[in-house]
């Protein structure tokens, strides 16, 4: 009996000890950023931050929730567009990125090159290539296997707008079909059963991330982007932790996952400000200096045959660049957006264009009739009783009353004929005008997702030589 009791006690103690020996607690840290928009200046500090966290935690993943490209001429105008930021992401050992809407800004061919360059996968489940021969290597999901057999499932989702497309120029999306991110995610909830932690890398925007969390079960973490939301204290919605870290690599979200015997028992996240970290990775700093010393910005893109001076001449040049973008017929640029007095005769560089037009405004397309165009011109004039809008595709004369206010605008098309009162026109204008100027319009407008500066660079490259001496398309005349 005593012997039997001792054996049972031994088995019991052995079980306890073996259970306790096998009970394994692991902390997995995910460092996530989103909407970096090609802002590479913080990368040396960010890399040093990653390394300092890796010194403390064994399992550290680095993820991007999309929009890695577009927003910094150093990267956007690099001969191999976007190359510098992928180079830095490789150096920083990113594990995955979701495809953001701006990933298409350089076109599909360039995106494929960047995917090839990247040492990490590009994810998006709600993308279908209708022409399989032209498919990009975008995966719907991936699994990351850590030591101790821990498996992290990652699902990617890209934003689509009410028109069913991501926010980029539709011409860059040929051969691709997009479906709702939230609905598509429901077809991939099986991922939860194939991994220990199920993470959605989302470029849907914070509000839609919350909708996704509240309408699904099994997603442990949504790492979001698109809305540039600074989620200071990330919260759980329906048991799913939802994070987002602003934009431009100013912040990083540090999510800590605590697993016991590969079961996720606790998760928390905090926002870190990259500038608060004191260290700098010297290797990346050297690389950054190399990229920032961008000879490409000094590249000559064309030649001015004469000085291009003053708002009229410069405005005509800028709007001609906008009007060269399909399907724009008439283009407008406000005088306040013309930031130099002159482009001197001689070579024109990319840097000259960014000095002239530094704001990053995009071209917004409106379908407007003659009376809507006329109202835009008149109300813009009446802001300060002076010519404010430069134009392409038309010339116009403002008719003023005694008080100097515009009472009418006589609009002549570039073919010399008066504007057709029964026709609608494709009117492109800077996003500043689109959002700041009051005028009646039936069409709410759509961004063409090309900056006014980029349209001008393309225009001058195409023309090779430009001459705007004496150009003036907007004038005033007193009413008789």
């Amino acid at each position: 009996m005593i012997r039997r009791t001792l054996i049972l006690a031994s088995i019991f103690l052995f079980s306890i000890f073996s259970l306790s020996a096998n009970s394994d607690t692991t902390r997995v840290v995910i460092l996530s950023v989103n909407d970096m928009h090609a802002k590479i200046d913080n990368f040396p500090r960010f890399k040093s931050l990653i390394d300092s966290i890796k010194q403390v935690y064994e399992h550290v993943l680095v993820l991007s929730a999309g929009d890695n490209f577009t927003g910094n001429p150093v990267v956007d105008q690099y001969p191999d567009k976007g190359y510098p930021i992928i180079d830095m992401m490789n150096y920083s050992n990113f594990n995955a990125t979701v495809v953001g809407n701006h990933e298409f800004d350089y076109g599909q061919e360039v995106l494929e090159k960047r995917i090839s360059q990247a040492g990490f996968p590009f994810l998006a489940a709600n993308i279908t290539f209708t022409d399989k021969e032209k498919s990009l290597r975008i995966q719907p999901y991936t699994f990351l296997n850590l030591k101790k057999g821990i498996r992290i499932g990652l699902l990617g989702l890209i934003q689509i707008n009410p028109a069913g497309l991501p926010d980029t120029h539709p011409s860059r999306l040929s051969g691709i079909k997009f479906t709702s991110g939230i609905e598509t995610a429901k077809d991939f909830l099986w991922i939860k059963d194939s991994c220990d932690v199920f993470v959605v890398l989302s470029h849907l925007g914070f509000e839609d991330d919350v909708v996704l969390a509240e309408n699904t079960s099994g997603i442990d973490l949504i790492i979001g982007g698109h809305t540039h939301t600074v989620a200071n204290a990330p919260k759980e919605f329906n048991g799913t932790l939802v994070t987002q870290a602003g934009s431009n690599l100013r912040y990083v979200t540090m999510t800590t996952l605590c697993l016991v015997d590969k079961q996720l028992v606790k998760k928390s996240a905090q926002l870190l400000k990259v500038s608060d970290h004191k260290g700098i990775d010297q290797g990346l700093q050297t690389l950054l200096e190399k990229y920032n010393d961008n000879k490409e910005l000094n590249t000559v893109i064309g030649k001015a045959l004469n000085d291009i001076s003053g708002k009229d001449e410069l405005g005509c040049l800028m709007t001609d660049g906008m009007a060269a973008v399909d399907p724009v017929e008439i283009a407008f640029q406000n005088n306040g957006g013309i930031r130099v007095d002159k482009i001197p005769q001689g070579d024109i560089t990319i840097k000259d264009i960014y000095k002239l037009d530094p704001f990053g405004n995009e071209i917004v397309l409106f379908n407007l009739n003659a009376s809507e165009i006329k109202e835009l011109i008149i109300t813009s004039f009446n802001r300060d009783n002076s010519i404010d809008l430069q134009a392409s595709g038309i010339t116009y004369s403002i008719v003023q009353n005694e008080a100097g206010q515009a009472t009418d605008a006589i609009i002549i098309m570039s073919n010399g004929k008066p504007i057709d009162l029964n026709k609608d026109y494709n009117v492109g204008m800077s996003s500043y005008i689109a959002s700041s100027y009051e005028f009646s319009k039936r069409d709410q407008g759509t961004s063409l997702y090309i900056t006014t500066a980029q349209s001008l660079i393309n225009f001058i490259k195409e023309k090779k030589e430009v001459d705007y001496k004496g150009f003036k398309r907007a004038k005033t005349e007193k009413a008789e």
Partner: protein
Amino acid sequence: MTIFINNTGLNLYTGATVLDALRAYYRELQSDFPEKLPTILDSFGNEIETDGSLIHLQRLYTIDFEYNEKLFEND
């Protein structure tokens, strides 16, 4: 695309940013665009950066903080 700032509905072009929404908002109020931008929050109390993309029917709120020294004189 329709979004709301402080419950004022704004019709914006597709692809507009938070900054565009603010411009339209102050235009709607017939108020000058402020030199110092307010803090912009979403429905969940998160701060939103001005270059952020907007989502149809998104609701944003502006908070103006003004430090008033007199309030702290007796501290």
